[in-house]
């Protein structure tokens, strides 16, 4: 394993970038479970749908206004809004019927959504990978090169983490959401409409996923099947961090991302296995996760 500071720092950036990718997708999953007790197996498929929509909108903008890299920003913003609305509708039409059901039934419903949205994607966009090509040029750092887009992803991850913390701890609506986690009945008794809270949280989770898909597009292609790959890693992150804990999800993402990046140095073939070994260890010694609460477990 290389020991020079430059190589270690660049690998660290790479690991942090991967960590923030995982956090951006997992945070919505964790938020939805934490507040609503819904295991949304279709979360990554909705993430994928957000990515395809961003791709299409960016192409549309590029064809209309010419090739400008910054056109990705309005594309991401608009799609985040669209997916917020879609999330709201899904919660009102389907998810709300699942609150009183057992987890296996929730999984069946959300798995059905995976198939439906997967086929929809196939019909509209076909089976080829899609990505947005931006003229990203490497920058020289520590006698080597680094992909500058790492820093965009890291900034987006920290931004969403900070934003979620601010929302949950510093806004009235956020405080209501946190209260609803512990006692829906009490919040309801105060005259606050729980269904609206739930719809909003579900929509927010999906919107964050869509936002992250747009952010990833210039560095990572999206394609059918990626959602299934991603959801497994997201579940690993959420279990390690503790279901429902945004802080836990953030810390677990960093652990997973950095451990993965440095495992590539030491044991490239076993990098993913090491992550799942951590998951197994957490499940044995602290089943509620690093930052979860025993009560919820």
């Amino acid at each position, binding site marked *: 394993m290389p020991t020079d500071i430059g190589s270690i720092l660049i690998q660290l950036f790479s690991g942090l970038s991967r960590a923030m990718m995982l956090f951006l997708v997992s945070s919505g999953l964790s938020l939805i479970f934490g507040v609503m007790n819904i295991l949304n197996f279709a979360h990554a498929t909705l993430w994928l749908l957000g990515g395809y929509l961003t791709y299409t909108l960016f192409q549309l903008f590029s064809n209309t206004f010419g090739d400008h890299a910054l056109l990705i920003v309005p594309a991401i913003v608009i799609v985040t809004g669209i997916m917020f609305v879609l999330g709201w509708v899904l919660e009102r039409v389907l998810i709300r019927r699942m609150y009183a059901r057992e987890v296996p039934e929730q999984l069946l419903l959300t798995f059905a959504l995976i198939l439906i949205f997967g086929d929809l994607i196939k019909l509209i966009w076909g089976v080829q*990978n899609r990505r947005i090509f931006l003229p990203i040029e*490497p920058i020289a750092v520590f006698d080597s090169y680094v992909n500058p887009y790492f820093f965009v992803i890291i900034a987006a991850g920290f931004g969403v983490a900070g934003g979620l913390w601010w929302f949950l701890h510093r806004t009235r609506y956020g405080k209501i959401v946190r209260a609803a986690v512990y006692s829906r009945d009490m919040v309801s008794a105060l005259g606050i409409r729980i269904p609206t809270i739930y719809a909003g949280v579900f929509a927010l989770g999906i919107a964050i996923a869509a936002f992250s898909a747009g952010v990833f597009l210039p*560095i*990572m292609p999206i394609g*059918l099947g*990626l959602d299934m790959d991603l959801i497994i890693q997201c579940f690993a992150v959420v279990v390690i961090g503790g279901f429902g804990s945004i802080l836990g999800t953030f810390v677990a993402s960093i652990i997973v991302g950095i451990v993965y*990046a440095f495992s590539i140095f030491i044991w490239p073939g076993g990098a993913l296995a090491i992550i799942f070994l951590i998951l197994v260890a957490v499940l044995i010694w602290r089943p509620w996760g690093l930052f979860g609460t025993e009560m919820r477990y």
Partner: protein
Amino acid sequence: MSSYKNDYQWSQIVETLNKTISRRDFIITSVAAGVMTMVPRFVTAGAAEPYRIGVCLPTTGSGANYSERPIKGLPLIAAEINKRGGLLGKHPIELYFRDTQTKPDVGAREARSLILNEKVQTIIGTWSSAVAMAIQEITHEHKVLHLAATSNSSKIVNENYTPYSFQFGPNSRMQSGATVVAVLNMIKSKGWKSYVTLGLDYEWGRDAQKVFVDKLTKESPETKLIKVFWAKLGETDFTSYITAIMALKPDFMFGAIAGKDNETFVQQAKASGLFKRIAYPGVFLPVTELMQQRKTLPRHIIGLNRCPFFAHMDNPIMQKYVKMYQDKFGKDDYPDDFACMYFDALNGLDQGVTKAGSTDSDAVRKALTGATIDTCRGKLTFRDCNNQLDAASYVGEVVDTPDYPFPIFDPKSMVAVQGHEVWVPTCEEVRKLQKKRI
């Protein structure tokens, strides 16, 4: 219905493909093609028995990117043969498309279904050697011909050999051998001393990496392999691998990466500055990639492909393929390596049946074994001990050209490493590798 004629029906299939393929999922079109090919059974009562061919290709998963053009083009070749009545002038070809999803179990299931339910006599396909080898077991069991048009693990014709399988492209051993030939030249000219490998962790990737390392170690033992990296098939984030490779500072890297993964790797490596520091000779760049990545592909890297149309535009068969394809799908589209090898497979079958004078699978395989066939790459011969076509691998520098709207390999410096230069040297050695089958 009664007005249908075989060639007309084929042109209808192609029309359907042509109208829909540009925007919509080509799964639908392949299913449509499969359904339409069944029509002749009901409208040509009294005609000779049709010759049914199963086409197993992934329309999902890593290999989907390379299936589009073979699916679009195969009906054109079949229609061409059917214009003269089909095989032997009396067995019109019917194609049955199936999606393998790039999964061995699905491929095997579809192959068995094609043989038992559709009564196909030949299966062409597929992408992914792991899937092809699963199909190979089924075709061997049922004594059905298997034309491995593009899947190219050397095991298909060596360790897993069956007399019913024929390989139409350079296999992984030959392809890696060709890369070694190119790399040896560069080791001499550039003074390279160390390298790393990054391969996709599945049948083909493992096979290609092993052959490359073994051969290079034999030819240039002083060139040191620093580290071996394996990434999973379908990897979308190579950044940790890229930064790790850059940290090791090798002189060059060998990649056994294909499909969508290859495009992802090249783009992420470019953005991370890998190509500024480390040479990457022999990156697999079929025409598909040259077209799709025309704006972003780094120029002057040394690529490898298996059946580039631009290397054989002096060959009338290749000219015909390109013209036929472009007449249907527009001047901006070209048949890629995969399409050309599938076209050769179907035309090769036609030649085998003609030589055998029969459509019986045993007669056809005997006729093709050791036979020389006309292909878009010239006259090529099947090796009689393992049914491997003596196909070249093409190594060249990626450059822009005014002739095409995408980069190609520099015609001035491109090297075609012939199959027999790099395959397992003797048939005696090949037979030692081949397992005994019942």
